[in-house]
């Protein structure tokens, strides 16, 4: 970015000027639109599990196959969902966050140098 003046008044810092750009606002929005709903999903799913364990031990003790109970199954599904969300986030971050973040970072550090 060669001319910084067009970003805002000259008495602001480079960070303030970047913060005001639509590109940065979009990066922030994209991150929040992914991580907030996803956090809500795993929080609720975990709370459902904990509540079932506390208030429905009879249901959790139901045997599915041999000695394998519903409680063990739901517990193991928590592992599965954790692995799945992890993988989804990494794919999302690699594709949708890193390129924009990298571009802005280079603009700032080039600007400061």
């Amino acid at each position: 970015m060669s001319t910084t003046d067009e970003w805002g008044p000259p008495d602001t810092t480079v960070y303030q000027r970047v913060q005001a750009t639509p590109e940065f606002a979009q990066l922030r929005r994209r991150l929040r639109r992914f991580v907030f709903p996803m956090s809500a999903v795993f929080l609720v799913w975990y709370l459902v599990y904990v509540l079932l364990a506390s208030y429905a031990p009879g249901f959790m003790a139901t045997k599915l196959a041999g000695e394998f109970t519903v409680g063990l199954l739901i517990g193991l599904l928590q592992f599965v969902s954790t692995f799945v969300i992890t993988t989804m986030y990494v794919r999302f971050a690699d594709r949708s966050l890193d390129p924009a973040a990298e571009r802005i970072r280079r603009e700032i550090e080039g600007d400061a140098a």
Partner: protein
Amino acid sequence: MNGTVGNVGLNVGIFAVFVLLTLVVVYRASRSNRTASDYYAAGRSFTGSQNGIAISGDYLSAASFLGIAGAISVYGYDGFLYSIGFLVAWLVALLLVAELLRNTGKFTMGDVLSFRMKQRPVRAAAATSTLVVSFFYLIAQMAGAGGLIALLLQIPNSNKLGQSIVIGVVGLVMVAYVLVGGMKGTTWVQIIKAALLVVGAFVMTFWVLGEFGLNFSALLSAAVEKSTKGDAILAPGLQYKNKLDFISLGLALLLGTAGLPHILMRFYTVPTAKEARKSVVWAIWLIGIFYLFTLVLGYGAAALVGPEVISKAPGGVNSAAPLLAFQLGGEVLLGLISAIAFATILAVVAGLTITASASFAHDVYANVIKKGQTTPGSEVRVARTTALVIGIVAIAGGILANGQNVAFLVALAFAVAASANLPTILYSLFWKRFNTTGALWSIYGGLAVCLVLIVFSPAVSGSESAMIKSVDFHWFPLSNPGIISIPVSFLLGVIGTFVGRREPFNAEKYAEMEVRSLTGAGAEKAVVNTA
């Protein structure tokens, strides 16, 4: 069964070999320790995968190995809740904290919390809660170490003095690692330990499953047969009679991880946020797979050793995994698994000690007392002295907590971390209007509520498993305070922010923090070290 298992000479031998080997590694790693960045953050020179393995080494403490396997072997399903909480909690770290924190901070949690606030009061608060969390976590590890070594050296539970001396010696050895190796040495110990632990647990898991023809259901029915509680061990409710207690514990586990200072500090040992993300992914996979192993090991110990024998052995519940090893592979496997368990404790204690000492030296000494006017050399000197003091305090606490289930003790540390640290971390990263008053209210308020509830809980007095059995001054019904203290702390952050609304808003610092956290611009760079 009078609690004598294995051959003392062999146990001590395997153990001594391990201590010597790791000391050599630590010593070699320490030779390139030059600057504060080397000492605290290992020069930010580790890769994402190395750091991920080290994080699992840091996280899979005695609580995970000895505590969870022990809890599952005695209480069945309720022990499994710990592993689920400990694992799912990593999503909070992955999605909301790790990368933003790596981009913003330098050495400690206080760097991030105080970034756009008044430096001295917020740093002092962050250091206070770091020290308290680390203290609880340390006590748990020391209690685990005491039980383990007591089992190896065959010191019976009646010989409290003997066990206390063991805890003392173990504590001193651990502090020595930190003083010599700094963060680099500590990280290598954690990497070695994580590899040993995961491989050891893998071997034992398949060995146990092999005893039952690789049939998990057959293993479960053998455990049911051996248990006096019957198939109640396959469903929740044996350990936690109080439903709210169960929920409270669940909340503390979920929200504690991303507020643990020694875990947060590990994100500074990698060069970029992308590497920090990669470390969390490695950690999640390793930790998740490890907890699947402990599920088998816990029920396996119940089936092959039996809950009665485990409860009566030196070290109590925490001895399930070593006893299972003895049952499977005799004294050699017992010696090996115990050495691994000891390595586990060692690595975690080293990580905790370096975090607590860094927080004191960097936040309190350099920034609060000296107001930033100090040399990195003197800061590191202070950190080393602090490490020694922390070691001594941890030894004393460990002696007091000897015999408690370590997973339970660690859960208290998680409750403190979730109450004192997490709200302020999230607010300062995501909430523009959050201010110094809000941070102080949330940290000190969350900390105080949490500690008061713990002191007056059945965990400390007035129950069979209480730390102080002779008197009963408990009035809070839950053994884990999370369900009250965590929401209170989030609320205090909001109220404090409202109370302090006349504080001048630092737009410059806010912009710098937000842009830095999302893009990595201006983040602390790796140290290029030619040595």
